[in-house]
């Protein structure tokens, strides 16, 4: 199998148009500068031919409707945006995103607020679903933060709420969180049992 692959390396791409496409695809995927030597090997052509083709592509990219270009650096080639596009890229990264606390985020936040310090696994045990995404978002929003590591195998990260969290809810410490009464938990159990009983009766 490996050998077959290697043989393919040598098979040249006959069509010039297709060769251009291959070079474009490779430079796009790699992102970084790629040595002419490697490009030529992948294309199955000699370096001179490939260099000639890339140079002609570079001319084509100069068209007004292209936002990207190929630059040559020390016998390597790299695809990048044109310098004139800089402002537009700044603009797109500055388009404000709408941030919303979804149900998942709210539930995760409430669990962390009440059960902190808590590991991701423990949150998942309560919710029954993975919550990597929710935890990451809450960290991004600076509502929760890493508090340290649990002294257990794998040393998982412990999460808790931030000062920003306290400040935004106008409380000084976590002691001011509304209390979950033990009777309330007992009520839940009874409710669930009643629901189960109902199901059985039907």
């Amino acid at each position, binding site marked *: 199998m490996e050998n077959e692959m290697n043989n393919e390396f040598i098979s040249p791409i006959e069509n010039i148009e297709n060769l251009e496409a291959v070079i474009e*695809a490779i430079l*796009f*995927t790699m*992102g970084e500068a790629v040595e002419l030597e490697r490009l030529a090997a992948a294309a199955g052509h000699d370096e001179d031919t490939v260099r000639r083709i890339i140079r002609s592509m570079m001319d084509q990219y100069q068209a007004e409707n292209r936002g990207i270009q190929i630059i040559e650096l020390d016998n390597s080639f790299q695809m*990048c945006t044109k310098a004139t596009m*800089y402002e537009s*890229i*700044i603009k797109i*990264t*500055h388009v*404000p*995103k709408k*941030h*919303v*606390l979804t149900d998942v985020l*709210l*539930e995760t*936040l*409430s*669990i962390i*607020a*009440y059960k902190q310090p808590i590991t991701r696994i423990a949150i998942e045990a*309560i*919710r*029954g679903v993975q919550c990597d995404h929710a935890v990451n978002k809450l960290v*991004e*929003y*600076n509502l929760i933060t890493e508090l340290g590591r649990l002294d257990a195998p794998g040393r998982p990260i412990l999460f808790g709420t931030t000062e*920003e969290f306290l400040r*935004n*809810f106008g*409380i000084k410490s976590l002691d*001011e*969180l*509304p209390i*979950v009464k033990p*009777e*309330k*938990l*007992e009520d*839940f*159990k*009874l*409710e*669930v*049992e009643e629901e*189960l009983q109902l199901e059985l009766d039907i």
Partner: protein
Amino acid sequence: MPIQYKLESFEGPLDLLLHLIEKNKINIYDIPIVLITEQYMEYIHDLKEKDLDIMSDFLVMAATLLKIKSKMLLPADPKEDSEEAVDPRQELVERLLEYKMFKYISCELKDKQFGAAKLMFKESTIPDEISQYREPVDMKELLNDLTLQKLHVIFESVIKKQVDKIDPIRSKFGRIEREDINLSQKIMDIQNYGIQYRKFSFRKLLEAQCDKMEVIVTFLGILELIKMGRILIQQDDLFDDIIIDYLAEDIIPVEQFSIE
């Protein structure tokens, strides 16, 4: 040997049933239930891991088949409108149909994934100086009308759901154990109360309990004490208060109660 292991590739009772139907050319008017059950059991035997959850899924289908068969055997209810009478197999056929459709779709998706897997994407290459700029999150907008009270309600509902998820049977075992202790303690309490007051109101005793569980346990305690001949109860009229007479002169230690 390889054939046996192939059985493991069934993804559930419907999958297996489709296979068995094809293989046996089953006529549903005369479902070979014995054969199917045997084949089900063979399948379960062949499972490397005896996963109770998986087995129960398969047993449910076996039960469904039996139910269909029994319905088929029963004479049609003459009171039922003949037009309304639903073929007992209808539901099963519909389920099989739906399942078959999704199996077909999943094959289509598999092909699509094969094609899509050949597209290559590029990592983001936003220049550092731009990427370091982070649009500040507007906390007021983000938190909107979220209050601590709401967060509290959300937490309670999360915990309630967690309770929901607890296996009803096993969770009951746990509860019985705990009540065991409560009941013994309650019987001691009632005896203490009895020694002190000799004659007392059942209604008042219940009213003194702080929640439903306590009331139930107290009631059980009274029944137990009647059975033991420690107390006598008397009610003059229906719905009247019940008066409890504590007959004994002592308190029996809790260990002597065998509560089953």
